[in-house]
């Protein structure tokens, strides 16, 4: 997990560096042509990514000590001949390459198989779980983005003062805090001792689905969302701070100062304008961390989201569900990166207009 984080961070830094420091040579591409070639390239990338992800995760599961028959039977007792039939059904003795081709063929047809633990089609599990997770992730993504950006701007303006140090300390502490630990602490303080929020789950226990109110859902969402947001703040706040300090020591801010603009004008007119785009890009690149965080947070709060389903699928050897979630999460992260790329290629006027005018 840690190694993955490190690699991911290097990737992000590399990307940000590429985005904002790379010298843009003039090339004579018209806007439309550019969009087509951009889309083509991304589509190709998506295809190859999915092929690799499918193949690697399938093979990992294939060679792990998972027995699908055992997983399917669970605690039930079955006769020997029944077991043979099940083995036949799950294809235990089919060669792996054939199994992979069968599975991949079904995936292409849109058939993800049936979940072993929920006994319903994988695609339905994912749909239902994603809806809950989507709310959770969207809320915390927005809160962490806005809060992190604001804190970063404040720390950048007040560089070197106690406010800056307090924000920095907060960020470093958070960056070093394991997600599940923070979730447990919040759960203990706010749910167990103070009793402000429910202990877990997405809806109250013992209430029929029709009687669950929006208030119930929001109440169950708050703690997981807060945990996830608090953790997401650190990276974006530190990045915004650094970037703002860099912008505020630039030539153009010096010149604006020489023209009589005051401190606050400088931040509002030039600081935020130049920090916003890279910060938003970074926030989109953080989709993978968001997903990873959601897995842990949902587990601690027993929140019925896709992350919890992933853990359950892993622990209880639900291969079809696990593979389905792997594909969905790969798509999710790819989508985040894609938006970041689109912002860079089509929103930043330095690149957009450069090519339009040439």
């Amino acid at each position, binding site marked *: 997990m840690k190694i993955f984080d490190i690699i991911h961070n290097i990737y992000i830094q590399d990307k940000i560096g590429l985005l904002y420091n790379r010298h843009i040579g003039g090339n004579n591409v018209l806007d439309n042509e550019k969009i087509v070639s951009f889309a083509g390239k991304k589509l190709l990338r998506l295809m190859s990514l999915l092929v690799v992800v499918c193949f690697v995760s399938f093979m990992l599961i294939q060679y792990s000590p998972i027995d699908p028959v055992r997983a399917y039977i669970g605690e039930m007792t079955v006769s020997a001949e029944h077991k043979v039939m099940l083995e036949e059904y799950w294809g235990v003795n089919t060669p792996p390459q054939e199994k992979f081709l069968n599975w991949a063929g079904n995936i292409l047809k849109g058939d993800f198989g049936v979940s072993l633990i929920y006994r319903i089609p994988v695609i339905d599990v994912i749909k239902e779980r994603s809806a809950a997770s989507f709310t959770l992730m969207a809320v915390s993504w927005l809160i962490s983005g806005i809060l992190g950006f604001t804190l970063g701007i404040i720390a950048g303006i007040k560089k070197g003062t106690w406010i800056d140090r307090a924000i920095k300390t907060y960020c470093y502490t958070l960056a070093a805090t394991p997600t599940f630990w923070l979730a447990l602490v919040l759960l203990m303080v706010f749910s167990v001792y103070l009793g402000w929020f429910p202990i877990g789950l997405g809806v109250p226990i013992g209430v029929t689905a029709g009687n669950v109110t929006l208030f119930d859902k929001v109440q169950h969402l708050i703690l997981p969302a807060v945990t996830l947001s608090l953790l997401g703040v650190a990276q974006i706040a530190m990045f915004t701070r650094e970037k703002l300090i860099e912008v505020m020591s630039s030539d153009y801010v010096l010149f604006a100062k020489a023209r009589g603009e005051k401190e606050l004008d400088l931040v509002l*007119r030039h600081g935020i304008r130049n920090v916003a785009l890279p910060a938003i890009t970074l926030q989109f690149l953080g989709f993978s961390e968001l997903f990873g965080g959601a897995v842990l947070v949902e587990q601690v709060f027993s929140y019925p989201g896709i992350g919890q389903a992933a853990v359950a699928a892993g622990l209880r050897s639900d291969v079809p569900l696990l593979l389905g979630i792997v594909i969905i999460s790969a798509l999710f992260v790819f989508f985040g990166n894609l938006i970041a790329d689109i912002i860079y290629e089509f929103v930043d006027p330095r690149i957009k207009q450069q090519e339009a005018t040439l």
Partner: protein
Amino acid sequence: MRSKAKICTEENKKTEALLKVKDLSLSFIQYASGLRQTELKVISDLSIEAYSGKILAVVGSSGSGKSLLAHAILGILPSNAILNGRIEYDGKELTQEKKEEIRGKEIALVPQSTTYLDPLMRVSNQVIGCVEKENEGLMKKVQREIFQKYDLKPNVERMFPHELSGGMTRRVLVSTAVISSAKLVIADEPTPGLDEKTLNETLNYFKDMANKGCAVIIITHDIEAALKISDKIAVFYAGTVLEVANVEDFKNNGENLRHPYTRALWNALPQNKFQAIKGHQPMQDEVTDGCIFYERCSKKNVLCSKGIPQFKDVNGGVVRCNNVS
């Protein structure tokens, strides 16, 4: 009686310098190894005067701290800078508060390159700058007039800095000073790497400003460009001004030039003798007791190594040299 007195002071004002810089020193605090602080002196005992309607060129080689002079006058030095000496503007001392009050209004800076423009802000917004909402319309009109005068097409308004050509950037930067209706304009290296035509154009903008009564200070390393339009030339060397000469002094072979360094500079030009002198400018951390040019001077004597020579008025200019009378 009273009106006469008033006229007198008005006349006095005309001959008085708008900006007087006296014995200005600028140093930076640096942390050397450990916690030891060292002071790095970049400008020492510098004195210049700028008059309304005249152009003063401050000429010196690159990297000698000339830009910092502009920053010192505008009060935009970094926080670790220590400024000593006296700056007077319009007869009154120019304190940091006063600088913050009048910069952008009465004193304008024309910066040297496109990096001084916000890369993500449209050009017209930058030229207009930070104004109150109700004045925006008026300023927009003024900006359009200025752009028209400088032959900047209407579509330039909505461009971003990276879309401007070198010449356009120049004109946009100059516009920022013109729109402020400043009385004192300080141009920092306004002619870097410009072709002959653009160079002359740019210089004319400054000539125009001076003709309209502005005091203009041009900070440059390009002595030829400076000679084309300036009234006076201040020769900047290793953080100080060695001589302030009139433009006429550079005529002929420069016999009227007072300081040995100014002559050396003049002789080093390709169209003159193309002759360089040995040595280099003393580094900022080298401490010299005597004349700062002592090491390289051809006329040095014992006196020159002891104490910095005082300014002397010679032939309508001033010079810091013991051997001139």
